[in-house]
């Protein structure tokens, strides 16, 4: 592109327009025609972030094509964003710290945000911190958002600011694709070093949600070089959980979480006066 003259507005415009064509294959964010129901496609590279509002019933597939991705996930109720993922409630209500197929992501209002419809990953982590400037400065020598080892917390600050939220809204994340095991004495054992190329997690939106995620190395990853492979995101429209949904009926706690969610949806519909609105 050096041959293009950027000294004039017309030259600069041609230079700018030439760039998208050159990169189109790698960073395709648009939904190609002829893919009905596809809501979102995006590839998130090392150190980056993404946010999206997904409607109730949508299926969000997070895929690890190269086997070494690491995702920090936050979820909010799209319509009242003070309601958000609560990690302690998620593990405590389900009597289970290790998330996987059939598990729920619960809000701090006793409702289901999303559920794990399928999961072929090696596992996840509900205990560890997301990286912040403190962690990445110590580990990589630089954790600045503009540097080579951007930290998750500062990435979320920017991502959430674009949604009208702030640093107060960066709660603890669930950390996907990098399992951490808790020993009998309470100590952590890192189990995230086995590559799992092609593994994926399918999350169902059980209400309209705002999803925010970062792709940064797990804080317990022992490698001292900033290493994380890309995440492929696909979201499609889908049918919400029915009364006989296996995740809903699996436990009394899940049953009541869906009841609370539907109770809230009923009121919302009434106030909005929208028949069948979700």
């Amino acid at each position, binding site marked *: 592109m050096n041959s293009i003259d950027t000294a004039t507005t017309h030259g600069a415009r041609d230079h700018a327009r030439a760039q998208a064509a050159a990169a189109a294959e790698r960073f395709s964010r648009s939904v190609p025609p002829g893919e009905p129901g596809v809501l979102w496609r995006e590839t998130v590279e090392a150190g980056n972030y993404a946010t999206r509002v997904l409607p109730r019933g949508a299926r969000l597939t997070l895929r690890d094509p190269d086997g070494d991705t690491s995702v920090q996930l936050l979820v909010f109720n799209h319509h009242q964003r003070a309601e958000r993922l609560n990690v302690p409630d998620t593990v*405590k*209500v389900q009597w289970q*710290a290790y998330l996987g197929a059939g598990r729920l992501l619960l809000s*701090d209002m006793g409702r289901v945000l999303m559920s794990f419809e399928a999961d072929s990953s090696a596992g996840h982590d509900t205990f560890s911190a997301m990286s912040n400037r403190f962690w990445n400065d110590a580990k990589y020598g630089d954790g600045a958002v503009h540097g080579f080892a951007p930290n998750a917390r500062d990435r979320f600050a920017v991502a959430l600011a674009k949604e009208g939220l702030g640093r107060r809204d*960066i709660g603890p994340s669930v950390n996907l694709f990098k399992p951490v095991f808790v020993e009998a004495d309470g100590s*952590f054992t890192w189990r995230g070093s086995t590559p799992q190329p092609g593994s994926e997690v399918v999350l169902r939106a059980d209400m309209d949600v705002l999803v925010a995620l970062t792709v940064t190395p797990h804080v317990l990853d022992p490698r001292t070089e900033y290493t994380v492979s890309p995440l492929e995101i696909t979201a499609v429209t889908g049918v919400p959980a029915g009364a006989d949904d296996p995740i809903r009926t699996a436990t009394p706690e899940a049953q*009541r979480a869906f009841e609370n969610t539907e109770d809230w949806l009923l009121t919302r519909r009434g106030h909005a006066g929208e028949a069948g609105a979700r």
Partner: protein
Amino acid sequence: MSRSVRVVLDDTVEARAPWSHVVLTGQSLRIVDLEGNQAVDFLLYSAHDSVERYSAADTMTAQGNVYLTTGSVLRSNEGNPMMTLTGSTVERHDTVGGACSRESNSLRYGHHTNHQHACVDNFLHEHVRRDMGKRDMVPNINFFMNVPVEPDGSLGIVDGISAPGLYVELRAEMDVIVVVSNCPQINNPCNGFAPSPVRMIVTEPA
């Protein structure tokens, strides 16, 4: 408190009640479990910028362990030390289980518990008094509460390991707002099914 100290505050927190207080750098807070196995739900905020607050995840990650015990450093969401556990006569404390709420109680014990008083209501009561709110609710510490994590990932609140008169002592490493809910839960063993008062003693070097 064998060393020479001056008592700055000596409060008893009633069963089921909220409490908050600013503890200054270098001061110590002793929490006494007066009647035994009374969960004390506990949060910290920087007194100068409440966006910086206790982070269970950063605390556990930094020490490589889920349990809090003597020597544990309570870290903020920016990784900074907020308080240090300088002494504990109970073997360990929890920071995985979070706070009880009306809403989560309805999932755990049934919809009939939705109108029972709960820790999140206590926390929010103190938060709004101090110009904070729901967005400032983050996972807390549960002093004197026992939450084992088993090899298959099972975890839950089980019978306590505290006893009358046992205590935990914390030294402030920055000026902090301490916000406490003296847990009102009656549906699990965290308070021995009978919430009881606790004592809060703030001291400073004489």
